[in-house]
């Protein structure tokens, strides 16, 4: 939502429309979006066929436009009629109500307000995803990308180091979590029959995820100890080596399938599970970077000497932030393996690294919203451009290069984002990101 709103804001033609809608609180937009996806469920298929398309466009019609340019007008009409108009109209019409409700909720308790907004968001995404399985997969991958990107931002943005070890952390998390779940809850050829009743599995799955995260943290310790003694490029080099070591280690461990990969992961990660995991991850990282303990990472980044002279334990700060970030990458890796039901070491190489780096730098350093925007943006872009096949590996890097040239710090960098502010009613002319 945010990048679209931003693009609209920057266009002078839409500026007046934007002003007209500036009184709509977040609650109103969510309500509008929910209406739009409900509408799609009811008449989407009918409208799509009437417009000459084969069925409901999977990703806002972009893929149809790329595949069959003749259908561009139909796809545009579809997007406007199904998504844009209902969202805007409902948001505008209910403005007075939603402002009142948002105010009451916040007055009641910010936590209640937040949970309600998240529930509304999840409901919208769930309905949107219920159209087909492909959408559910894209959503789950996007949530995992958000976790990965945000955790990398803690290192490359907040701590200001350049780390290339994220694919390694993802791999560690993916494999450790998978091994645990398969060992304990699945009858497998290699690991034998399940050690615990499979019915317990879904309840103990979070434990396996945490174990995967912790294993990534242990790996991170191996990177941190040699590289945080000094500042500079050492971390980049050592962390890159770490990624390759993890990858070739897995490739050479026959018991977990070597280069052929590891499969049989139980299907315990439907959309709500991944969504909740992402919300917890975002919430904890958000709390961390806003606390004084977390902001110490920024002080270390901006001037380590000064930080040390003002009572900040610089070494501890760096190691804590690094292990913390690695933990969430590990958890994301565990989810990733279980969403696909299969992992192989080839996934966790340079391509993955460049993808995550692109998400961090496109979204913006040092910003929680930035990382969310970057992850969602690139993940969607990648899916949208899929019909172009090989060409998308030219288009994506070009987009990144253009961003580096014209917006070097990313879309939304160094922005403090206040949740309570975002949920606030918009009766006055103030307006959130």
């Amino acid at each position: 939502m945010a990048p679209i709103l931003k693009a609209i804001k920057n266009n002078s033609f839409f500026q007046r429309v934007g002003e007209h809608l500036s009184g709509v609180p977040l609650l109103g937009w969510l309500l509008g979006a929910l209406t739009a996806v409900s509408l799609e469920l009811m008449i989407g298929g009918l409208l799509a066929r009437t417009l000459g398309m084969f069925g409901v466009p999977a990703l806002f019609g972009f893929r149809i436009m790329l595949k069959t340019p003749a259908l561009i007008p139909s796809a545009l009409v579809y997007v406007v009629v199904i998504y844009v108009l209902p969202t805007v109209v409902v948001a505008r019409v209910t403005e007075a109500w939603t402002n009142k409700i948002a105010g009451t909720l916040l007055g009641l308790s910010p936590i209640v307000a937040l949970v309600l907004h998240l529930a509304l968001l999840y409901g919208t995404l769930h309905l949107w995803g219920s159209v087909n399985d492909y959408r559910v997969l894209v959503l789950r991958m996007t949530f995992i990308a958000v976790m990965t990107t945000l955790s990398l931002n803690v290192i490359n943005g907040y701590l200001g180091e350049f780390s290339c070890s994220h694919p390694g952390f993802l791999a560690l998390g993916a494999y450790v979590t998978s091994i645990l779940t398969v060992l304990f809850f699945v009858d497998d050829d290699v690991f034998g029959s399940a050690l615990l009743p499979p019915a317990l599995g879904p309840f103990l799955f979070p434990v396996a995820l945490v174990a995967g995260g912790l294993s990534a943290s242990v790996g991170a310790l191996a990177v941190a100890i040699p590289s945080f003694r000094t500042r500079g490029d050492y971390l980049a080099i050592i962390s890159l080596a770490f990624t390759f070591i993890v990858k070739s280690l897995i490739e050479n461990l026959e018991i977990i399938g070597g280069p052929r990969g590891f499969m049989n992961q139980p299907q315990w990660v439907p959309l709500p599970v991944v969504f909740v995991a992402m919300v917890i991850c975002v919430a904890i990282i958000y709390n961390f970077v806003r606390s004084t303990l977390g902001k110490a990472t920024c002080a270390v980044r901006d001037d380590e000497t000064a930080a040390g002279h003002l009572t900040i334990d610089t070494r501890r700060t760096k190691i804590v932030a690094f292990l913390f970030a690695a933990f969430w990458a590990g958890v994301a890796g565990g989810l990733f393996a279980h969403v696909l039901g299969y992992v192989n070491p080839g996934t966790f190489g340079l391509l993955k690294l460049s993808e995550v780096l692109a998400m961090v730098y496109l979204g913006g350093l040092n910003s929680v919203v930035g990382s969310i925007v970057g992850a969602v943006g690139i993940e969607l872009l990648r899916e949208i451009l899929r019909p172009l096949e090989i060409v998308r590996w030219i288009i994506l890097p070009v987009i990144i290069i253009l961003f580096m040239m014209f917006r070097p710090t990313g879309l939304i960098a160094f922005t403090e984002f206040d949740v309570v502010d975002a949920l606030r009613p918009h009766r006055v002319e103030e307006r959130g990101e």
Partner: protein
Amino acid sequence: MMPLLQVDSMTHYFGGLRAVYDFDLEIEKGEMRGLIGPNGAGKSTIFNLITGMYKPTEGQIRFKNVDLVGRRPYDIAGLGIGRTFQNLRLWRHITVLDHVRLARYAKINYRLVDAFFGTGRWRRGEQEITDKAYSFLEMMGIERFADEIVTNLPYGVQRKVELARAMAVEPELLLLDEPTAGMNPEEMVEMMAVIREIHDEFGPAIYLIEHRMRVVMDLCDYIQTLNFGEVIAEGTPDEIRGNPAVIEAYLGEEEED
């Protein structure tokens, strides 16, 4: 009774270069001392040795009867030594308020887990830090800049932010490295008043490096003159003023006042 800070025959070499030689210093509680000397005399090196940025080649440093040699800077600062830097070392992406808040790091009373889950203990801890930070900003008269990023502020204000940040450590010893460098005469007079006010109100011992004679002469009770890493003269401002060795060390340099 031990002095607050005691430095005994401290010597420091950078490779083959002798930066500080056989340096002695005693600072009593609440005292104001000055350190002067031409450029490159080793004044800042002495500060850096006290605060743990460098480890002295030889010699002893004791603060409140604790041995400082070999301790890391954050540890030394936590004992109650605040400092400012010659060329402002502010954090360029961080707001004024957060500068002061971060200097309360050693006094954070919640754990990492509290921060992760946003517990009540974390909230109270942060509120305490914020309230305290505002009191230091108000003391410097810069509370209206609280939410500004430091790089957007005028130089004089930046200097005050740095001083507020050093004071947030609640130092018993405050090391000021050329606090009036780069200031015009009005700003200089204002900064002198601020330093005096800090001293009267909180009573830390102050150890001051200055190039401007007027500042040291006005503020300090006792002054040391350093040249090529060695103390060539020390005494009260009046004694220093007439000392031929001091005049010689500064010969060719224009006194700014």
